């Protein structure tokens, strides 16, 4: 069951993180720009592309693949929309690889625009208040009826409730979770595109940052930035013609378990456990084979629980494990070597693609100052909703 490992990421693109958008572009224009960047990175022509994956475009609620196909002038044999929140990017990559391995496509664009710098209509002001976040306030939505009226909305409150449950079952060491943020900031300081490049922090800085929702403090939370990221997934023929060392997708797993954490069967044993088990089994790899991991990091607690549930340490031991290991790019277990979303920044939906690009950049040997020596196997997670829909990917260089 599964992939043969014959589809590869052959190009990567990630815009430098910006606090404020330096240009104004519709998401459809952002998609086109990132598509050009990723094709140029691979050294391949747009004519090789016959598949496209998107999470949707701001200018059109429906028909996103067809609209993009028309705009780009690229006819598609596979037009896909993925709706998995922060797991969307990782979900895009395995779907694209599956389309390639089935012989449907030669090359598939997986592009995620991530800038709010979008032209605004002078005639039609935006009406959506915007604060429902990942919750739907539509009539008949379970969230509209049973979550939003109690203020159970956004991400900070729900993730804090996960952390509190974790604390009750296993204990909580704020210095341990802080150490994750510190290691990722060290990595960001070796990656010029990161929003916090040149701004190291200490564990004490994290502990002194304002409490947002107990036990989550400001420096445990991602930084929203403007940007965007993309990869190009292609078959072996194109991989041989591309400019860089191909990054083969060897295994994946996806598991969607619920929408709102209130209804999780077990809030502190997350869907990544099943997704990771399936990815490792498909790839025929062991946890010990992993040279670097890029773990979806909306919060420090997300990283900690993902490392546990993905099997890198025993359940309930993550707090001591992260203090015993060096998670920087020069450490014994490199995690989020470009800073992660905590310190590179979260460019909206492109935040999930940051982790795919981070891993591919390392396996291509293009991480410069932050390069992990002898890096051949990488593990990536995507995490959507409130640890409710998760994807695991395993990549290998040749």
């Amino acid at each position: 069951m599964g992939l043969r490992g014959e589809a590869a990421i052959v190009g990567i693109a990630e815009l430098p993180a910006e606090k404020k958008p330096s240009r104004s572009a519709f998401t459809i224009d952002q998609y086109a720009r990132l598509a050009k960047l990723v094709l140029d990175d691979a050294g391949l022509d747009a004519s090789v592309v016959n598949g496209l994956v998107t999470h949707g475009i701001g200018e059109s609620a429906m028909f996103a693949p067809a609209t993009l196909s028309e705009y780009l002038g690229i006819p598609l044999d596979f037009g896909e929309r993925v709706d998995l929140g922060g797991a969307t990017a990782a979900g895009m990559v395995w779907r694209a690889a599956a389309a390639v391995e089935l012989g449907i496509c030669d090359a598939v664009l997986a592009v995620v625009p991530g800038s709010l710098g979008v032209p605004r209509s002078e005639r039609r002001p935006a009406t959506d208040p915007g604060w429902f976040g990942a919750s739907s306030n539509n009539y008949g939505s379970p969230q509209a009826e049973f979550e939003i009226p109690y203020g159970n909305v956004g991400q900070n409150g729900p993730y804090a409730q996960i952390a509190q449950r974790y604390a009750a079952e296993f204990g909580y060491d704020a210095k341990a979770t802080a150490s994750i943020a510190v290691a990722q900031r060290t990595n960001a300081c070796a990656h010029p595109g990161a929003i916090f490049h040149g701004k190291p922090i200490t564990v004490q800085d994290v502990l002194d940052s304002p409490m947002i929702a107990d036990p989550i403090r400001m420096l445990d939370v991602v930084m929203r930035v403007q940007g965007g990221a993309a990869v190009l997934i292609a078959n072996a023929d194109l991989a041989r013609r591309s400019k860089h060392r191909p990054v083969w997708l060897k295994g994946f797993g996806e598991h969607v378990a619920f929408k709102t954490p209130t209804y999780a069967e077990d809030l502190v044993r997350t869907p990544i456990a099943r997704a990771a088990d399936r990815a490792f089994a498909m790839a025929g790899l062991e946890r010990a084979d992993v040279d670097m991991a890029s773990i979806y990091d909306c919060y420090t607690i997300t990283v900690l629980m993902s490392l546990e549930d993905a099997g890198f340490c025993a359940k309930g031991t993550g707090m001591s494990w992260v203090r015993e290991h060096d998670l920087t790019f020069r450490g014994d277990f490199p995690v989020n070597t470009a800073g992660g979303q905590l310190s590179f920044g979260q460019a909206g939906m492109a935040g999930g693609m940051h982790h795919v690009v981070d891993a591919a950049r390392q396996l291509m040997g293009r991480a410069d100052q932050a390069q992990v020596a002898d890096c051949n196997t990488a593990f990536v997670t995507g995490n959507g909703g409130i640890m409710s829909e998760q994807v695991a990917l395993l990549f290998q260089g040749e």
Partner: protein
Amino acid sequence: MSTRPIPEPTPVSRPFWDALAEERVLIQYSPSLGEYVFYPRTLAPRTLADDLEWREISGRGSLYTFTVADRPTAPPWADAVPQLLAVVEWDEGPRVSTELVEVDPADIQVGMRVEPVFDHDPDSGMTLLRYRPEK
């Protein structure tokens, strides 16, 4: 302050909200599944059995998890911090999202016993189900 969102009953959920107005907690039960179900649905989860029926429960339960949010989770709660967001596990099994009231934030503990507080909103006529420590 923007207006706080008020739930709007649906054809599926109306018995739950009507019961709250009478200070009763009414949720669904699937005899073939042998389990209580929340939130209201037309078919039972997992089995999709077409046998959901309404049953009254005590509404009592234990605190599954919580947080004390010092920063408002959204603009309508800007004047309501700290928000005491909570998930209660009913004695009958299902969990429900709620807020804690009549409690010092420092005294909140996962696992503590809690009881319903029926919070009537005269403007909308709706009753929200909040919780306080069991007396």
